[in-house]
């Protein structure tokens, strides 16, 4: 199972999404191999979050197929889907922690629901996840309402990691965080990929995240995949939107692509 990094984790094939007369996606296709850290970017309203929801089985696309961990998400039976669900983790934008449970119980939910582990194994495992997410051990007893934005996100990632998934989806992992916390979060994500061998698929707008930790970038625009490749390759695309997206960085002197369009 762990052998080669070649196998495909996620395959999105000609996804079409329409809301009424409005077409959001018009044939979006890409695939993600195991062990990559992939970022999806695109302007507001290009349907990044919608695409993410379609991938994890929360929202049915108008047409097209999503194969996640070898299962066709929109054709699978409930039982198959439930199996797949225990193999991926999802971190929602604001954490989506269950507000009636403390952090430790939030992290324990997937373990209690999807495994039949003994309690004396679950709680140390929960503490391990909390530590892996970079939270101090006493955070476990806190309620989500007592946490800062950054801690909420870490708690959410601890819950997403609970079952040691093969792939994790992150929706805007660094939005609303200060730059220092955001960079620490980037490191955490990179560590998941390098040390735990998790595949990470994230939606972000954070240029620093894109330029420092991401292996591959997929740009969504006008309902299609506009560019797909390493950050450097994408930056060299001549598309106006991509150019202006990265121009902020160039103006600040951080980027080094001085190609005139």
């Amino acid at each position, binding site marked *: *199972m*762990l052998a080669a990094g070649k196998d495909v984790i996620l395959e999105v094939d000609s996804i079409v999404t329409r809301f009424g007369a409005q077409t959001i996606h018009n044939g979006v296709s890409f695939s993600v191999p195991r062990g990559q850290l992939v970022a999806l970017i695109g302007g507001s309203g290009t349907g990044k979050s919608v695409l993410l929801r379609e991938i994890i089985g929360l929202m049915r696309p108008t047409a097209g197929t999503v194969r996640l961990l070898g299962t066709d998400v929109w054709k699978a039976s409930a039982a198959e889907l439930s199996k797949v669900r225990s193999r991926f983790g999802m971190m929602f934008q604001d954490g989506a922690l269950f*507000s*009636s449970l403390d952090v*430790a*119980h939030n992290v324990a939910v997937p373990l209690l629901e999807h*495994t*039949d*582990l*003994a*309690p*004396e*194994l679950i*709680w*140390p*495992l*929960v*503490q*391990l996840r909390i*530590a*892996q997410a970079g939270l101090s*051990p006493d955070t476990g*007893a806190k*309620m*989500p*309402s007592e946490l800062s934005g950054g801690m909420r996100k870490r708690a959410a990632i601890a819950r997403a990691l609970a*079952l*040691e998934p093969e792939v994790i989806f992150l929706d805007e992992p660094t939005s609303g965080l200060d730059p220092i916390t955001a960079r620490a979060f980037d490191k955490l994500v990179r560590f998941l990929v390098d*040390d*735990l*061998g998790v595949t990470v698929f994230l939606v972000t707008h954070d240029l620093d995240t894109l330029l420092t930790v991401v292996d591959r970038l997929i740009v969504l625009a006008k309902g299609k995949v506009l560019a797909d490749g390493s950050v450097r390759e994408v930056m060299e695309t001549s598309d106006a939107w991509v150019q202006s997206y990265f121009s902020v960085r160039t103006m600040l002197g951080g980027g080094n692509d001085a190609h005139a369009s």
Partner: protein
Amino acid sequence: MTPRSRDTPPQGQLASIETSDGGATLRLAGDWRLPRVQAVTAALTALPKPARVVAVDGGSLTGLDTAGALVALRYLQRIGADPKSAAPRNFTPHHQRIIELVAGQLAELPAIGKAHSRGFFTTAGRDVVAFADLLVSYVQFLGYTAAGIGTLVLHPWRLRLKELAAQFQQVGITAIPVVVLVTFLIGVVIAYLLGLQAEKYGASIFVVDGVAIGMAREFSPILVAVIIAGRSGAAFTAQLGTMKLTEETDAIRVLGLSPMDVLILPRVFAIVVALPLLVFLGDVMGILGGMLMAKTTLGIIPATYIERLHAALHLKHVVAGLVKAPVFAFFIAIIGIRMGMTVSRDTRAIGVNTTSTVVQSIVSVILLDALFAVVFEKLGI
């Protein structure tokens, strides 16, 4: 001197102990990942207790994750070996990193981290303190509102008529159908119930007294107050709680407006004015309901019913009922608004506070009613 023993692991065994002169080696094999943790734990439990584990061999592992590593390291801890002194051998670099990662955090993990449940006395103590806090905060809020009303008396032009009208519409006008329905039916039920008894004594006509006085003094005020507590008290909490959560109340403050003028007082006045009107409507509907029932089951025609009504229903009964209404209303408003304004930073609190508002309002309406009963009795009303 020690005899050299060697237990070769049978095929498919997940864990085995290999003893040699230098000490024992724990050999891990197969799939050591979360879905298999149960089997792995069982395999470790079945092992003979070795003397001294000096090394861990992971050469035959096909899979390892942090859960598996945790189980292995905790096993070493349990048999009294220091996980850090046991040299890892033959692990793939990836597995080696996972082992190191978990070993690094092992010290901070609880030995048996059972969920922290609170004892009975802790819970009881917390509840008592919370209840005392609640009472204190009501006194504070009452003072705050009284100050707001005082300011308004001095500066009447600050009353926001538009908000007041909107709230009155919400609390009063839209509540009319449900109030009409409920009080009419209760009038019917009381007339029926009394009629069954009164008929036996040939005193059917006194059903009118019972329905009229009962509705005016008790049933209509209580019922309407309970309806409004469930409808508007809960709505106040939910609306203000949501506004608090989305920082709208803060925005009101920052824009130089006063939440007291914009949010609190319009609601208080609206409900205090609306409730007596609804209670009066309830009185009328209850008496009409009684009239319907008196006609159909007791044969008392409406003309007779109204004639008896004039004799039986003194003004003081109606006033006694109407006097209670604004007091009930004020308490419902204070409870609903305070519970909304004190919603904490998570969405669950809105639900909790809304439920609490309904319970507190209904209980306080009943308590106040009992208090009124005692006072009216002493005053001979």
